């Protein structure tokens, strides 16, 4: 059969961000692919060495929109470790709250795009409409739909009072039945979704370990690694974190992991509001941040996010370096795509939920 070369990207309707694949196609099957990165490189790591610690907080929040809470959270945790700042308990709970609310919105966005890619526009609209409940909640609590600006060094910048808490619970009460009674059953039983996503882009648990895969991609293949339980930060050690795994390692399993994690995150949000202790939301006047270095990691919606911060005693950090889960996850595309049909390319790319702007920063 004649083989030819097909470019996918850098701009392609079903890719949310610029990513460029050169795909060798034989008939309707993928024979090989080459991933070209670097289309949204903005030099953010370099810029962090030109700005002071507080300016960097605003900068790092803007690395990526869907994980825009995880980046500043990890960065603040690193600086708190270096300076030995004690974060008040209430602030720790509020950090978990911001983390989980972003996870809900991020995962729901991804599964909605899956429906769009298989041409199921009604489901796409339905999931996005359900997600809109969460977007409204974020806008009400944080004043923003995407960049929450929740974290500051030593705590958080926002607070939840009784009225807000009641509002959030009412919003969760609206979202939860939609998710449990409509969206999850549709993904579990709908014939189109099943026939298009099951058995596509398969990887095994061994591949997860070999490639160092993270997040829902690994958990969808039965590798139950989650920073929230493996190395709890903030108050995750006191939360009932469920690690959801599916054994099959296909596109469908990854989508199901995300959907079940949304349900788990909603339970965590409720737990946060219930257990929220009184007290300060930040550490007050901050001490001088000495020279030092720290490594922290958090569970971003896409998996483990590692931050390394090195300070030299000035207010400008000597080095800020981070490793995002998509960096490992997109390498496994080589494995997932070969032998699959070209109609499954966007589906497989979407299933690893690549965050290009995090990875290329």
């Amino acid at each position, binding site marked *: 059969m004649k083989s*030819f*070369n*097909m*470019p996918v990207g850098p701009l*392609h*309707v*079903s890719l949310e961000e610029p990513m460029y694949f050169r795909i060798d*196609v034989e*008939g*309707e099957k993928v024979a090989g692919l080459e991933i070209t990165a670097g289309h949204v490189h903005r030099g953010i790591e370099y810029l962090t060495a030109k700005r002071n610690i507080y300016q960097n907080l605003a900068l790092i929040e803007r690395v990526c929109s869907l994980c825009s809470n995880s980046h500043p959270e990890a960065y603040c945790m690193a600086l708190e470790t270096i300076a030995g700042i004690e974060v008040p308990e209430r602030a720790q709970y509020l950090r978990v709250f911001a983390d989980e609310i972003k996870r809900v919105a991020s995962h729901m966005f991804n599964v909605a795009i899956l*429906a*769009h*890619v*298989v*041409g*199921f*526009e*009604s*489901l796409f*609209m*339905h999931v996005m*409409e359900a997600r809109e409940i969460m977007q409204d909640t974020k806008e009400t609590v944080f004043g923003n739909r995407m960049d929450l600006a929740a974290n500051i060094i030593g705590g958080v910048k926002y607070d939840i009072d009784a009225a807000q808490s009641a509002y959030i619970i009412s919003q969760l009460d609206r979202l939860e039945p939609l998710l449990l009674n409509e969206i999850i059953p549709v993904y579990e039983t*709908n*014939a*189109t*979704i099943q*026939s*298009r996503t099951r058995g596509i882009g398969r990887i095994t648990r061994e591949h997860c370990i070999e490639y160092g895969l993270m997040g829902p991609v690994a958990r969808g293949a039965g590798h139950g690694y989650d920073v929230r339980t493996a190395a709890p930060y903030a108050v995750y050690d006191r939360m009932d974190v469920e690690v959801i795994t599916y054994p099959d390692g296909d596109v469908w399993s990854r989508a199901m992991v995300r959907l079940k994690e949304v349900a788990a995150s909603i339970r965590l949000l409720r737990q946060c509001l219930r257990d929220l202790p009184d007290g300060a939301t930040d550490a007050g006047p901050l001490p001088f941040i000495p020279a030092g270095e720290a490594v922290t990691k958090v569970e971003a919606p896409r998996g483990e996010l590692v931050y390394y911060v090195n300070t030299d005693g000035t207010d400008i950090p000597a080095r800020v370096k981070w490793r995002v889960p998509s960096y490992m996850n997109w390498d496994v595309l080589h494995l997932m795509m070969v032998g699959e*049909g*070209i*109609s*499954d*390319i*966007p589906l497989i790319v979407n299933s690893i939920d690549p965050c290009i702007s995090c990875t290329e920063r």
Partner: protein
Amino acid sequence: MIKDTLWTLLAVVVFPGGLFAMALGLALKGVERRAIARLQRRVGPPLVQPFYDLVKLMRKRTLIPDTANRFVFLTVPLIGLAAMGVAAAMIPIPGFYQPSPLLGDLIVLFYLVSVPAVALMLAGSASGSPYGAIGFSREMAIVLAYEGPILLSLVAVALHAGAAMGQPIALNLSDIVNYQQQHGAFLFDPWLLPAFLTYLSFIPANLGIAPFDIPEAEAEVLEGPLVEYSGPPLGLLKLTSAIKSVVVIGLGVALFFPNGPDGIAGLVVFALKCVVMVLAGALLKAAVGRMRIDQAVLFYLKWPELLGVAGLVLVAARL
């Protein structure tokens, strides 16, 4: 003779082919878009949006990629449109319009209905884009899958109508329509039910309605054969698909349910039948996702093919 020719030309260019079919087709597209939007809890575009889109495309510049075969790239949309104009003139509007026998019979119509698909394949391969090439191969696969069942369905109706009228086979659409208007629609004839279902299953594949909108899948192959088109040629391709929906639905109406009042009311009833079919298509489109090409081909080779054969056997058994 000259008068006949002129009337036929008028039928192809103005009514019911040409301008009328364009207007009706675009209006049906508008209805479809609005209906889908409402099913998805969106507001949706105004009903005249397809007309706006067409006007916009007609006023834009045409870009021809360096890799394209210029001549084929530009002529193919015209061929598709011309074929559909003639085909639309061959569709009787029960009680209002009878096509001239000069235009041809059911066999010619069957071939004309396939022309836009062939035009789309040529367009895809002439554009020199890999997406166009994939669109080409997908379009070909799905055409090969649905041509069989639709032919079986047409032959079943023609044989049945022919037997009823004392001919070996009825290939004149006007005769089939007249017979049904006097003796009741074939839609309610249980012997023709498989043929009717086969025809129904052919409509979404031919019109590119989900789950069979595979050749032009936007999220997968960037609209496949259309990817390199812009401006007026793209407008003509969109227009062709609009007329095609009138032709394919109109043919179904003529074959299975042409009954209705005479005169201008017949025209209105015909348009209403088209709207009902389009709404059904919108419901289908909103309810399912897209199949993979292998799944769709397998589906057509299995169920509609089986139904088509069953329909033909049922009709033949009664001869």
